[in-house]
C-alpha cells in the first residue's frame, strides 16, 4: 500500500449527504447495529470495512430501507438524506430507492435482454418520453459503467449470458440509469476476478463526480484504493470513522489497528 499516494487524495470539504443518528437495528432478538452515528459526504466514496457479521451490510441496507423487506428487522434512530428523515411515515420507500440505488454482492441481472435490464429502472419511473430518449439513457448508462463497447452489438442478448464482471458492470449501469443521488455497493467485487475488479474500481472512482458512493468491502486494499472516507465496524459498533488515509496509517482505536494489521477479523 502506497501511503503517500493515499494521503495525497483530495479531501476537500463537501456537503453532507447522509446523516445517521443513533441508529440501532434488531433482527428479532439480536442487536445487529448499536448506536451508529455517521455522516456521509456528497461526491465522496465512503468505504465500510470490518469483519464478517459486524453489521456493515445491514447498515448499508438501512440507507435505502431494503431492510423493510425482512419481516423480523426493526430499525431505530434517524437516517437523514439531505436533511429529511427517510424513516418518516410520509416517505415512500419506493421513491427513496429510486434516489438511493444499490448494487449487490452477487451480480443479479434480470433474465431479460441487456437493453431491458438497463431500461428497467427508467421505465418504471417514467424517465423517458420515447424510444429515442430511452436509447440515449441506456447508452449513456452503459458507457458510464464502462461496458458499452463490449455489449453495444448485442443489446438484445440476455444479460444473464455475460461474464461475471460484465454482469456486475451491467448491474451498475442498471443502477445509475435511474439517476440516483447515492449509490450503495455491497461488496460489488467479491464475485469478480482481479481484472474485473480493477475495472469496477476505476468505475467507482469516476462515479464519484456525480454521486455519493458507499461501498462495503472485505478487501482493505480496495477500501484504500477507492475511498476517501472509511468507517470501521466491529460487532455492531462503529468503531472509527475518518479520512481513509488516516484510518489506514494512523488509526485512533486499537481495534482498528488490529483489524487493519490482520490481528482480528
Amino acid at each position, binding site marked *: 500500500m502506497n501511503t503517500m499516494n493515499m494521503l495525497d487524495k483530495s479531501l476537500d470539504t463537501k456537503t453532507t449527504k447522509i446523516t445517521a443518528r443513533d441508529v440501532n437495528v434488531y433482527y428479532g432478538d439480536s442487536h445487529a447495529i448499536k448506536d451508529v452515528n455517521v455522516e456521509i459526504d456528497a461526491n465522496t466514496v465512503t468505504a465500510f470495512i470490518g469483519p464478517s457479521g459486524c453489521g456493515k451490510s445491514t447498515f448499508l441496507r438501512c440507507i435505502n430501507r*431494503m431492510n423493510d423487506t425482512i419481516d423480523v428487522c426493526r430499525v431505530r434512530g434517524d437516517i437523514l438524506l439531505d436533511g429529511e428523515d427517510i424513516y418518516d411515515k410520509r416517505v415512500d420507500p419506493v421513491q427513496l*430507492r429510486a434516489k438511493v440505488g444499490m448494487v449487490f454482492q452477487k451480480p*443479479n*441481472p*434480470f*433474465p431479460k435482454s441487456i437493453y431491458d435490464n438497463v431500461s*428497467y429502472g427508467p421505465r*418504471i419511473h417514467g424517465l423517458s418520453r420515447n424510444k429515442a430518449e430511452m436509447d440515449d439513457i441506456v447508452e449513456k448508462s452503459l458507457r458510464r459503467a464502462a461496458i458499452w463497447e463490449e455489449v453495444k452489438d448485442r443489446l438484445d442478448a440476455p444479460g444473464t449470458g455475460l461474464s461475471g464482471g460484465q454482469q456486475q458492470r451491467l448491474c451498475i449501469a*442498471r443502477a445509475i440509469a*435511474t439517476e440516483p443521488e447515492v449509490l450503495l455497493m455491497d461488496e460489488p467485487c467479491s464475485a469478480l476476478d482481479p481484472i474485473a475488479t480493477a475495472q469496477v474500481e476505476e468505475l467507482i472512482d469516476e462515479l464519484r463526480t456525480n454521486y455519493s458512493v458507499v461501498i462495503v468491502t472485505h478487501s482493505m486494499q480496495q477500501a484504500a484504493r477507492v475511498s476517501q472516507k472509511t468507517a470501521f465496524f466491529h460487532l455492531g459498533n462503529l468503531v472509527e470513522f475518518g479520512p481513509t488515509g488516516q484510518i489506514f496509517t494512523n488509526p485512533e482505536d486499537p481495534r482498528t489497528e488490529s483489524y487493519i494489521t490482520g490481528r482480528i477479523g
Partner: protein
Amino acid sequence: MPIFWLIVILLALTACGYWFGRSRALASANGNPRELHSLPVYYGANVAMSIAIPALMTLAIWLLVQPMVIESRVSASLPSEVIPENTSIGLIMGDVRRLSDGLDEVVAQGFLDAKQALDLNSETTDIRATLGEVGVALGSDVRPEVLAAAQQYRQLSATGGRAMTLVCLFLALGGLVLSLRKTNKTFRARNVVERGILALLVLAASLAILTTVGIVFSMLFETINFFGLHAWRDFFFGTTWAPNFRGDSELSMLPLLWGTLYISAIALLVAVPVGLFAAIYLSEYAGSTVRSFAKPLLEILAGIPTIVYGLFALLTVGPLLLKLFGQGEEGLLGLTWMSGATSVLTAGVVMGIMLIPFVSSLSDDIINAVPQALRDGSLGLGATKSETIRQVVLPAALPGIVGAILLAASRAIGETMIVVMGAGAIAKFSANPFESMTTITTRVVSQLTGDTDFASPETLVAFALGLSLFVLTLGLNVLALYIVRKYREQYD
C-alpha cells in the same frame, strides 16, 4: 406340495442361510469383525440372496409358464370332433380346467381317494353329481373325451408341480452351498450385495417402464382391430358420433375431441388466473402465519375425489348457472340461454376449481425458486412489489408456470367424473357453452360399460379413443417438459 409351503420353506432356508453366512464369515475371522472385508451382515445377506433370488425367480417363471405349456399339450391331444359347431377350443378347454380342478377338490375333501379319481369313468359314474356335492358346478354332463383330457391335465399339473418343487429346492440348496463355500474373510460380500441392490433398483425402474409400454401396446392392438372393422377416415375426419348396434354406426372422434378441448379450455380459464394469483399472494405477499394455514387448506382441494366435484357440479353449480342464465326457478337475469343444468360451462367451471390447487401449488414452488437476489435488485431500483412481480419474478418463473399450466391441461383432458356428471352426454359441435356436450373420456366409459361384445366396432372404438387421448396428453406433457427445460433460467 402346495405353493404356499414351498415359499415358506424357501424363506426359512433364506433366513437360515443369512445366519449361516454371517456366522461362517465371523468364524473365518476368528470372531473379529475387523478382519473381515465387509460387515458380517453383508456375508449373511449375500448367502440369503443366493438362496432366495434364483429359487423364487424360477418359481415365479414356472408358475407363469406351466399352465401355458400344459394347456397347449392337452388341447393338442383333444380330438377335433369333440369341438361342436359354433363353439371354440377355448370353451372346451374351460370345461377341461373346471373338471380337473373339481376332481382335485373332490380328492382334497375325501369323497374319493386319488386312485378312484384316476379310474373314474363317465359311463358308470355321474361325475356331474359327484362334483356338485363338493360345490363345483358343471354346465353339462361330462363327455369321455373331456374327462380324458381333464385327467391328462391333472396328471401333467401334478408332475409339473412336483418338478417345480424339486427344482426350486435344489436351486435354493445349491445357492446355499455355493455361497457358503465362497464365504471367508477375504470375500468381497459388500460388493456383491451392492450389485444385488443395483439389480433390484433396475428391475423396479424397468417394471414401471415396461408396464407403460404394455399398456400402450394393448391399446394399440385393440385399436388396430378397431380400424379393421371401421374406416379410419370416419374416425378421424367424420363429423358425427352416433353409435348404434345395427352395424352402421358413425364413430367420429372429432365431436368428442371438440367437447374435450372446449371443456378443458373453460377449466383452464378458471384455474389459471385464480391459481396463479393465489400462488403469487401466497409466495410474495402472505405472511408466514397466513401461508402456514392457507397453503394446506388450498391443497386440501387437490385431495377431494373427483366424484365429489361431480356431485358439486350436479347439485350446486349446474342449478346455480341454470338460475342465472336459464329459466330455472324463473331465471334471475331473465335470460333463456340455458335449458338444462348439465352444460360445458358447468363441467368447465367445476373442473377449473379442481385444477386451482394444481396450478397454484406448482406455480408457488416455481415462484419461490426465483432467487431473492432478483427481487432485491428490482426493489433496489425503486420498483414496487407488484412491478417487481410482474416484470421480474413472473418472467423469470414463466417457463415453469407454462409447464404447470400444460400439466393442468393434460389433467383436464383426462378428467372423467366431473364431465359425466356435469356436461351431459350429447356429442356435437357447438360453440355455445350453455349446451350439453361430451368428451372422449366419458364416451370411453359408456362404450365399455354394460353388455359389451369385444368384437364390435362400437366397443373397440373405446380403445382407439383411449389411445388418441393418451397421445394427446403425452404430447402435452412432452411439450411442457420441453418448454420447462429449454427456457429454464440458469440462475447460478
